[in-house]
């Protein structure tokens, strides 16, 4: 009804020659909604990370675990159903390897990361705390501006991890900062609480009254590929340094194979040596002489 009313009113206004102030300069609204879901076979640690992200980002919408790992394009439809234009998808393989997809649905691009070194908020080492759903500051390393693929990832992070002003469950204050840094060609994710140090506790070397306490979670994202489309399409970037965890594991196993092999070789060598050391039958042996 209201839309009909608005349309009628604007028509009337136009007819009257009244121009609405908003029509001059259309106000841009950063409308981001993120679908948050995982594949089947997720482990507890990955699940905790997923819930942590859901708590940190009030503009996310969680969905049920996805059955299929091969037909990922259906996520685009799921996102559309949920009115989401972004997606974070946790793909778990072999119940141990976590891959995270960040995608702009439905037209892309999308990035696939391998997630390593996960520490969730559940852990007791990180002592910070913040409001649930408060907007945070996003801090990016300057390295993100060095190459196009990092730049693209930065844009994706700002849209997916940045909480829009108009999100429904946000709280009005800014009390934490999320940082993305590039070290060792990986992206390191950290989340800190911002606290203000009282005057009497400040030392002479402090340049600011702010201090940070880590809240968590923390994890490392190793980019694998950047795709043209959402969950598919042409590859625009492929990380040459990425080593699949399967390969890494098989390398470790192969290193152990060497030990087994060398042991078997040694046994074979010993057997041969013993065979060579055997003496030929003595013609003067007791059994030969008195038989």
């Amino acid at each position: 009804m209201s839309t009909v009313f608005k349309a009628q009113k604007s028509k009337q206004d136009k007819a009257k020659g009244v121009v609405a102030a908003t029509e001059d300069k259309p106000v841009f609204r950063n409308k981001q909604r993120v679908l948050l879901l995982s594949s089947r076979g997720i482990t507890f640690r990955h699940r905790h990370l997923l819930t942590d992200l859901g708590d940190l980002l009030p503009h996310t919408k969680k969905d049920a675990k996805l059955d299929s790992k091969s037909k990922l394009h259906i996520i685009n439809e799921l996102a559309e159903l949920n009115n989401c234009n972004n997606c974070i998808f946790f793909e778990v393989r072999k119940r141990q390897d976590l891959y995270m997809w960040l995608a702009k649905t439905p037209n892309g691009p999308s990035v696939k990361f391998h997630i390593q070194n996960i520490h969730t908020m559940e852990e007791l080492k990180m002592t910070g705390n913040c409001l649930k759903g408060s907007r945070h500051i996003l801090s990016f390393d300057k390295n993100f501006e060095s190459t196009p693929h990092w730049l693209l990832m930065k844009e994706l992070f700002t849209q997916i991890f940045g909480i829009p002003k108009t999100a429904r469950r946000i709280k009005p204050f800014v009390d934490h900062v999320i940082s993305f840094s590039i070290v060792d060609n990986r992206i390191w994710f950290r989340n800190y609480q911002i606290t203000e140090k009282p005057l009497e506790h400040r030392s002479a070397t402090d340049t600011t009254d702010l201090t940070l306490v880590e809240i968590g979670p923390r994890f490392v994202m190793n980019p694998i590929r950047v795709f043209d489309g959402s969950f598919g399409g042409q590859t625009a970037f492929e990380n040459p340094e990425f080593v699949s965890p399967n390969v890494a594991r098989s390398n470790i196993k192969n290193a152990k194979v060497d030990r087994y092999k060398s042991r078997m070789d040694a046994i074979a060598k010993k057997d041969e040596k013993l065979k060579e050391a055997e003496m030929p039958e003595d013609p003067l042996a007791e059994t030969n002489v008195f038989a």
Partner: protein
Amino acid sequence: MSDSDSEHEQQLTLEDLEGSDTEMLSGDEDGPVDIFTKQKVTVNNEPALRRLCEQIALPTDIPWSETQSITSSVPVHVVDPDDDLNREVAFYNQALEAAVQGRDRIKKEGGVFERPGDYFAEMIKTDDHMAKIRQKLLDENASIQASERAKAQRELKKFGKKVQTEKRLEREKAKADALDKIQTLKKKRQGGDSTGNADDEFDVALASDDDEMKAYKTAGKGGKNQNGKRPAGSSSTTESRGKRMKKDQKFGFGGKKRFGKSNDANSSADVSGFNVKRNKSTSFKAGHKASKGAAKGGAKQRPGKGRRQNGAGRK
């Protein structure tokens, strides 16, 4: 796409082919052999990446508070990513810079930054969880303190032992010295008892004689005291009676001597010496049992070490 872009692509593909990504295996000297060549060409289509970035980018003229994103002024540089401390410090500094800048910008745009103290709302970590964290910190502190105390105690023990040995040696030395002195004195006496020693004794006797005479005279004037034992001049003081008083205190003086140590109604009602903890302790009970058993004649006693070990081996 422009010319420059396609040129760039060309360059890229060439680079890719020349680089180490293309794994070429050569045949043996005998001749070319069929080898399965694995070719891995990585993709880095920069123009496409730029286009994608432009495609999704937010308009540039929006207020900063829409995204609240800040790029650091200095790139994070960590020499060794396995060095936890330096790495985390670098991240911390990056985030701190963003926090400081962000606060300024938020305030400039008229937003609210810090949470007032009386604003309570659901937190990301529950109170239970925070209590757990606090408890863990306390426990850690306590364990650190305990270990430090134990360390200090160990040091003290080491030091105490040193002091003990020193003291023992000192005492032994003193004893030896004293014995030495006595020996020398004895020797001296044996050596010259005919002359000097006799004179000495004589002198002492004279002096004491004088004193005694004086005392006797004064006593004679004053007459005898009530006890009729001692002269008044040599009446005892508290200092001189110290030893006697101690003895009296210990063994009693005057009064009834019998049943002094036997219980009466008051003493048997007094249970201040009773200790529940000690009474319930296993060692106390064991002792009690053992004594009972001994009275009966033949309770189980712990056999000696050798017997124990042999017995265990046999069974």
